[in-house]
Structure formats: structure tokens, C-alpha cells
């Protein structure tokens, strides 16, 4: 199963890319599994995970949220708008 991940703000510098397709094993992987996969791939991301939120589509989701093939996920570091 494949999901598309976009990194926002300073995260895209940490991981060196803005968007990436990620293959996940199993029928119903969760956001938590996606984040674990990415953290193993990018140590710089692992260090920041405690403050990173995840959105699927236009909704913030938690680690238990199930992913579907083709989902658009986003990793969102602490925000600084205004």
C-alpha cells in the first residue's frame, strides 16, 4: 500500500525532500506505522516527532488513524503563522 507524504516548514529541510511516496506493509496500516517508517528513514525527523502533527486530507489525525491506499498525508511541525 502506498501513501503520499508532504513535509511542511522546517521538516522538509530535515528530511531533504518536500514530498515522498511511502510503501507500507499490510492492509490497514495506521498513521503511527507511517510515522515510525519515516522516523527510521530520517533520524532528523525522529528527533522532532514529539512536536510533529499529522494530517490526512484536511483533518488532523492521531496515530491510530487507519490509512488507505493513495491517501495524502502531511507532517506538520510547530506552527508560526501571523
Amino acid at each position: 500500500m502506498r501513501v503520499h507524504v508532504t513535509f511542511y516548514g522546517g521538516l522538509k529541510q530535515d528530511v531533504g525532500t518536500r514530498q515522498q511516496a511511502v510503501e507500507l506493509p499490510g492492509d490497514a496500516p495506521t498513521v503511527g506505522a507511517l510515522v515510525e517508517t519515516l522516523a527510521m528513514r530520517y533520524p532528523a525527523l525522529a528527533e522532532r516527532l514529539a512536536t510533529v502533527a499529522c494530517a490526512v486530507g484536511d483533518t488532523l489525525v492521531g496515530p491510530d488513524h487507519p490509512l488507505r491506499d493513495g491517501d495524502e498525508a502531511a507532517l506538520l511541525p510547530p506552527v508560526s503563522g501571523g
Partner: protein
Amino acid sequence: MGRWIVSEPLALEPLLQETEDPTSGALVVFYGTVRDHNDGRPVQSMAYEAHVPLAEKVLAEIEQETLAKFGARRCRIQHRIGHLALGEPSVLIVVRAGHRDAAYAASRYAIDELKQRAPIWKEEHYADGGSRYLDGVPLTRKDETPS
């Protein structure tokens, strides 16, 4: 671009027209603008980025909250994205209410909530050519207790 997140320069006049309300006796306009320094370091320009679908949803929610919590009659919020020069407005908030107390309180609430909840990031660009994403506020879900 959208109704809340825009890539063109922010324009007050269309929002004043859109929020016209003869029952309101107070109008508060807040602009946030790009400052020429931060933490003692001279800033040359600022780049703003948003997760547009989520940011639009959050700003629409904040507008509605100002009506429900403070009795504001109208509220519109726009945030600009892209590369902004010094002094340019990055955010514009227009609130109309029956009286000034509600209008000031609602405007203050809107900018404070935006800074906590809107998925928007700013990257400062410095005169020496360097740049840096600013430290910010971690996003939390409504069903989650902030840690």
C-alpha cells in the same frame, strides 16, 4: 487561491464591503506585518507557507468562534503565503460587533487562535543570505490534551 489563504497582497477594501453591517457600531481591523528584525538579527524578507486545505478549515472555524463566543456580528480572516517584503501585511483580520469591547476581544481572540492552530510556517530570510524557520507552537487535535 482560497477565501482564507491568499497568495496576492492582502486587500482591506473587499473585506470591508463583504462584512458591511448596519447593526454594528464597532469595526476593528488588525494587520500583522513583516518586521525588520527578530532576536536581534536583521530580517530582509519573510516566506510564508501553509497547509492550505487545513488552514482554510481552521481559519473558517476561528471566524465562527468569534461570533459564538463574543457576539461579533462579522469576522473575516485572511493570511497571505509566499515571499513578503518588509512591512507587507501577512495577516488581516476584520471584526464588526455591536460595541467596541466585543470587537476588540474578538479580534484579539482571532489572532491568538490563528497563531496556535493554523498550519502556517514562516521562514525568515536574512541580509547575509541565510534563512531560518522560526520555532513555533505544536499543533494539537481537539480530542487530544496538549502535553
